[in-house]
Structures are given as structure tokens and as C-alpha cells.
């Protein structure tokens, strides 16, 4: 395919690996910034950066993790420029709390999206990585460049925040649930969902 390239096999593999992670990059980006159009812009930016830095990628390590770090950095620098400011909705949590449960399963994906956007970006990211992306706490901590314990507490706090907003009896939950939700319990719940 690329006659003049010094290492066509490596190039081809990199491209193939990159293609494989695109769907995950898109899902992570959309969860982070909440907007499909911005999310896809971010992913393309991350792909360009990954391509330019491909010599830094160590074959045998996780392309998914590596590109997630690049995507995350792209997101953070955009967020610093306040590009996503319009997405944050301080009233959404209140609306969620005042709304009675309407559906049998008690879940509106729109509400969940709003609730996710009410979380701090650190907690949102933690939940996306561990809860949805299928990363271990260790992998998620490496991507978010924090300690494993920090990642665990972010996930636990994000979980409590969401339960407060999404639960059928949010107030009761806040009062009666034990303050510290065990990480094991969290992992069990997530594993149950992930292995479905």
C-alpha cells in the first residue's frame, strides 16, 4: 500500500488499531462534553494528534487507553477555553428532583444525560471510564492521571450524586443510605451491567 514508507506494516497496523478504537473514542467524547458535534470534532483532533505521535505508541500496550489520554487532553484544553460552558445546566438537577417517576423503569435517558452533565467533569469522566467504558480502576486512573484511590472515590461520589438525582426516592436515599458506598458493591453493580 505504501511503497515509500520505511515500515509499511507498522503503519498499517497503527491505522487498523486506530480505526478499531474510534467508536469508543466517540462514545467517551460524547459522554464527556454532551454534544455529538463537539464530541466528533474532539475525536478527529485526537486522531490527528495520535497519528502525529504514533512513534510514541508502544506496540503491545492498549491503543484504547493511549488514545483516551490524548482525547482527554484535547477535551480539557477545549474546556479550559470554555467551549463547553453552554452545556452546563445548573437547573437540571432541581428539575430532576422535582419530577415524579414517570416510567416503569424510572429512567429517562434524557434525564440521565442531564444528570451526567450536572456532575463535575472529573466524576463524569470517572463514571464514563469505569461504568461505561469497561476500564478497571487502575486503567481509568492511568488515563485520568490520578491515584487509583482517587479514581475509586470519584466513581463512588459520582454514583451517589447520580443516585441522588435519579433514584425513585432521592431524599430518603440521602438520609438512609450508608454514607460510604463500598467500592466492591459499585464494581459488582457495574460488572453486572457490563457483562450483560
Amino acid at each position, binding site marked *: 500500500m505504501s511503497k515509500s*514508507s520505511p515500515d509499511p506494516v507498522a503503519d498499517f497496523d497503527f491505522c487498523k488499531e486506530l480505526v478499531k478504537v474510534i467508536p469508543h473514542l*466517540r*462514545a467517551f467524547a460524547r459522554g464527556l462534553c454532551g454534544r455529538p458535534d463537539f464530541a*466528533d470534532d474532539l475525536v478527529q483532533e485526537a486522531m490527528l494528534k495520535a497519528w502525529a505521535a504514533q512513534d510514541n505508541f508502544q506496540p503491545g500496550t492498549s491503543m484504547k487507553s493511549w488514545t483516551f489520554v490524548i482525547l482527554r487532553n484535547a477535551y480539557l484544553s477545549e474546556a479550559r477555553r470554555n467551549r463547553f460552558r453552554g452545556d452546563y445546566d445548573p437547573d437540571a438537577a432541581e428539575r430532576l428532583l422535582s419530577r415524579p417517576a414517570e416510567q416503569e423503569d424510572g429512567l429517562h435517558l434524557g434525564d440521565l444525560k442531564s444528570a451526567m452533565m450536572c456532575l463535575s467533569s472529573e466524576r463524569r469522566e470517572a463514571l*464514563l471510564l469505569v461504568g461505561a467504558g469497561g476500564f478497571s480502576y487502575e486503567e481509568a486512573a492511568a488515563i485520568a492521571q490520578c491515584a487509583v484511590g482517587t479514581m475509586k472515590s470519584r466513581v463512588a461520589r459520582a454514583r451517589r450524586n447520580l443516585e441522588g438525582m435519579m433514584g425513585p426516592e432521592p431524599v430518603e436515599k440521602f438520609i438512609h443510605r450508608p454514607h460510604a458506598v463500598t467500592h466492591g458493591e459499585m464494581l459488582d453493580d457495574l460488572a453486572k451491567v457490563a457483562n450483560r
Partner: protein
Amino acid sequence: MLANNSLDNSQTGGSYAAMSSEPEMKKASTKRKRERSRPVWAEGLKRMYDSVVDEEIPDDFVVLLKKLDQASEQK
């Protein structure tokens, strides 16, 4: 480790039969508790994420990949 286990078993052997129903009871009550606090949002979050993963990759991504591939050929 193995030695320790067998030692424990022999020491608690007498009460083992009486205790054997306890794990099951525990399991059942944990299950009930889980069902009560079933994290609907966790399932929804996974569904939300997976729905994006399952989407077809938009054309502009394919165009970008082709450009990148061409760029590497010119290197």
C-alpha cells in the same frame, strides 16, 4: 496458605454443618438489597455509551483516515 485453610477447617469442623446455610441466606439478602437499589442509571449509562459505540462511523472520519494514510505514504 493451604495448610492454614485445612487447619481452620479442622478447627471449625464441628460447627460447619450448622453454619453452611448462612452463606446462602446472606446471598439471598444481598440479592434482594441489590434489586431494591438497582442502579437503573448504571444500566442507562452503559446503554448510552454502547449506542454511540454501535453507531456507524461517520463519513468524515473515513475521509480523515484516508488523508492520514496518504500523508504517511508521502513520508
